[in-house]
């Protein structure tokens, strides 16, 4: 990868949908019928095993931002209680509505890797090999 991304991801606008093994919530939406409140969030999908934690709960709502200790529930499946995290819900928490859908996948680095120069300029590259 160059700059954390692979060519030609500097061509399409927006960020890429990553591969499933780098996805925290493979597919997520609020399940119908659940009594949703600030302690009870229903969702479908699965946890990624790459670190076993919901690091970015802002996939559900941009306003949810639990602290790092708000880890994965061991049996997270179709309904996940947020009670273990209730102390970290901010006052601005918005309860998702039934039928809400959310972005799938975790955006990769949204920085273009394209290098541009005007003729006559010099470009300095530092090239490293990790393997």
């Amino acid at each position, binding site marked *: *990868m*160059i*700059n954390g991304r*692979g*060519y*030609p*991801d*500097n061509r399409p606008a927006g960020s890429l949908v990553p*591969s499933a093994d780098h996805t925290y919530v493979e597919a997520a939406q609020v399940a119908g019928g659940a009594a949703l409140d600030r302690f009870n969030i229903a969702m479908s999908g699965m946890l990624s095993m790459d670190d076993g934690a919901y690091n970015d709960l802002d996939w559900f709502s941009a306003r949810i931002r639990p602290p790092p200790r708000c880890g994965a529930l061991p049996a997270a499946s179709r309904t996940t209680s947020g009670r273990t995290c209730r102390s970290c819900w901010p006052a601005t928490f918005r309860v998702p509505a039934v039928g809400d859908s959310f972005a799938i996948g975790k955006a990769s680095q949204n920085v273009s*890797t*394209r*290098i*541009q*120069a*005007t*003729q*006559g*300029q*010099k*470009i*300095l*590259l*530092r*090239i*490293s*090999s*990790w*393997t």
Partner: protein
Amino acid sequence: MERPAAARARPGRGGRAAGGANLYYSTNSVTLGGGESADAIIDTTGVQPGTYLLYTSNLNYLSNNQEDFGGMMTEIVVNP
């Protein structure tokens, strides 16, 4: 595809050895071992404006999973 020449040296040494000897040389490719780094200067003087590609010659790194072609490659755009 025509590629602009690159000159390189070991990083952080300014292209010179401890005794002042010049380690700078011109090349179109860089070969690195594991854990190695190199600094390269691409001089676009006299280079025809256009898009050039910086890429690995290891073909197995030029796959971008489901996007097929891509991977460890990027564009170098030389503007007039």
